């Protein structure tokens, strides 16, 4: 947490379809990545980003699950879904409206969907 005590952290979670993504022409992929780079620059310059990143494809995921005291390791994501978590920004702003204002401009909105979730706040 920064010195701004009344700030609140939100995760901007970007979901898109890896399948649709892989079907896009090269030039289109470049254009979208360029938009993401510009957006990342802008949101970073605003001084509100605490962490951000792009995830490798779900094919690289490994899932662990406890099963009667044993840990079962499986290949793949925890659930097969049409859209997958592809990246995130962890931001710190005053309230949901500010978080939504930033999320709305995320290029992820145009290619899939963007979920805004507050981080759990420990009660005082």
């Amino acid at each position: 947490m920064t010195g701004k005590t009344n700030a609140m952290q939100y995760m901007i979670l970007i979901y898109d379809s890896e399948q649709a993504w892989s079907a896009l022409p090269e030039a289109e992929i470049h254009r979208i990545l360029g938009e993401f780079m510009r957006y990342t620059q802008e949101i970073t310059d605003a001084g509100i980003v605490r962490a951000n990143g792009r995830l490798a494809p779900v094919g690289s995921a490994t899932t662990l699950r406890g099963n009667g005291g044993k840990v079962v390791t499986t290949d793949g994501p925890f659930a097969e879904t049409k859209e997958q978590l592809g990246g995130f920004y962890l931001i710190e702003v005053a309230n949901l409206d500010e978080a939504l204002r930033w999320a709305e401009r995320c290029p992820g909105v145009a290619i899939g969907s963007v979920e805004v979730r507050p981080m759990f706040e420990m009660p005082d």
Partner: protein
Amino acid sequence: MPALAVERVYRREHARGLATLVRRFGDWNLAEDALQDAYAKALSTWSGEGLPDRPGAWLATVAQNHALDRLRRRRHAAHGTGDPGGIDGIADPFEPGSIDEGIDSGVADDRLRLLYTCCHPALAPAAQCALALRTLCGLHVRAIARAYLEPEATTAQRLVRAKRKIMEARIPYEVPAAQELPARTSQVLSVVYLVFNEGYAATDGELLVRDDLCGEAIRLGRLVAELLPRHAEARGLLALMLLHDARRDARMDAAGALVPLEEQDRDRWHRARIREAVALLDSALPMRAPGPYQIQAAIASLHAQARRAQDTDWKQIFMLYGALIRHLPTPVVELNAAVAFAMVEGPLHGLAWLDRLEARGELANYHLLPAARADLLRRAGRHAEARVHYQVAVSLARNAAERAYLQRRILACP
């Protein structure tokens, strides 16, 4: 003083009291509980002493004291110590001037905050409606549940979840920033209209009109128009609801079947409500900010002002539908435009438009499309075809009053 009178004052003052308490304490549940405490105290005190000079200020003061008491008790339970002697950061309610500040200044702003927060798009539409009815109209959970024909526990749960989300996601208790204001204001208006429509055109069930919900929506609409005095569409919406509501008693016959506009007994329309709506609309138009609510209200006012069905100014109505399509390009608006066109140019022209509309497939399974077609066929004297389409409409209609009306039409086909 009878309990009903206390209830009336309580409901009138609810939004104001709650809005200020939420701002002061930042805790919706605490604010609601404290106001509830104040209401209980009003019931016992006022019955003996009668109404105080300023019941709103009385309720606010008592509610604030109860809120502070509750906070002290909470703190006591948490720390296991005696009275901490004061609550940090909250003004002492007995400090001179502090109540007046709560009552007289910034109150309109507080109610606006409440309004925009309840109608925040991050809340589910049903939750927005329930929250607005609960906080702004002061309607009890039981009454909201009854109006929405759902178990009380369902409504209560909906409200609990919505309030939890406001707290956890920190939906700001603020009037939105200028760049978001237009979109957020139309969201507010749409919530009010959603409540009204739920009451007026109940989609399911036996009753066509649920008066209580219509009344509450109009109450809400009045509050919104009062809080947004420079917003033409807020007036347009209130006018529109009043005009629909003016026809309420004439809309159903003794057997519970829907009576179409042209067959309604116009003496049973509420003239006072029509006059109020027309005046509202007249005051909105010079603001030069036309929108779908004002246009729909203008259409409804032309119907309301026609002494007999055959006096209706269909030409003007058709022109207004043309304007409405530009603001609200939906197939349902187009269906109404086609019907108005038929009234101006004759049923065959209307039928041709309905063919084009049907070919686009957007109104598949919408009972008013075959119903409109059947009406035009009947007007054109093609009764056998009309009967077939009324039959299709009956099979698609979900409301008993509408089905009863359509059945009657089938029987009336020679």
